[in-house]
């Protein structure tokens, strides 16, 4: 049952991650999905994989995406100011 719960939540969050068209909001969903995937891996008895998913998915990937978003937005702002 635990596996079913985790699987359904992962599937739902994947749908949400695709449906969120704004990258910053998608990053939030992806970070949620990363944590949920780690929980799924734990119930699938793969703690090693869960750990690396946590390490990557909860902080590293969101940080990378958010930094990219910030750079792209900052660019847009700077451009608007000069125009």
């Amino acid at each position, binding site marked *: 049952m635990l596996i079913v719960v985790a699987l359904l*939540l992962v599937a739902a969050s994947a749908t949400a991650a695709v449906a969120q068209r704004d990258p910053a909001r998608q990053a939030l969903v992806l970070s949620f999905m990363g944590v949920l995937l780690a929980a799924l891996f734990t119930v699938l008895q793969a*703690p090693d994989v*869960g750990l690396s998913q946590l390490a990557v998915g909860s902080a590293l990937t969101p*940080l990378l995406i958010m930094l990219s978003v910030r750079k792209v937005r900052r660019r847009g702002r700077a451009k608007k100011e000069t125009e």
Partner: protein
Amino acid sequence: MNGWNLAAAVLLGAGGTAALWGVTTGPPARRVIAQNMTTSAVCPALLLLSQGYGRPAYVDLALLLALLGPVGTLVFARLLSGDLSDGRPGAWGLTWTAAGAGTVVVTALCVAVGPGRALVKLLVTGALLIGGNVIASRALAGGFRGVRGG
């Protein structure tokens, strides 16, 4: 399925669904709060699972989540500070509820585990979880002001 696992399933299902709903709807500020609540829901669930499966080694997962979850929230709080500036709901009620739930779970596990090295790890995890949760909420409610260039 034993009681620990059942509790974990309930926590994961209810907390996860609520957090997912919060993360995908509403204004940005609320979404980040929901993202923070993910940690508060999943981390105790992982602790319960470790007990339910009879594998003390699984506590590492909860420890890491308690450590990195709030860091992830801080990332959003910092890099979305512009979007969050309008209307900062503190959500303190939710925060303290989550902290309370975390305390209950950790206490229950401590009782079940008994004294030893595992207990220390549990207490550290609990402290990190609750402290991180509260601080992340604080950061969301205006922890980063005047962050422009940096």
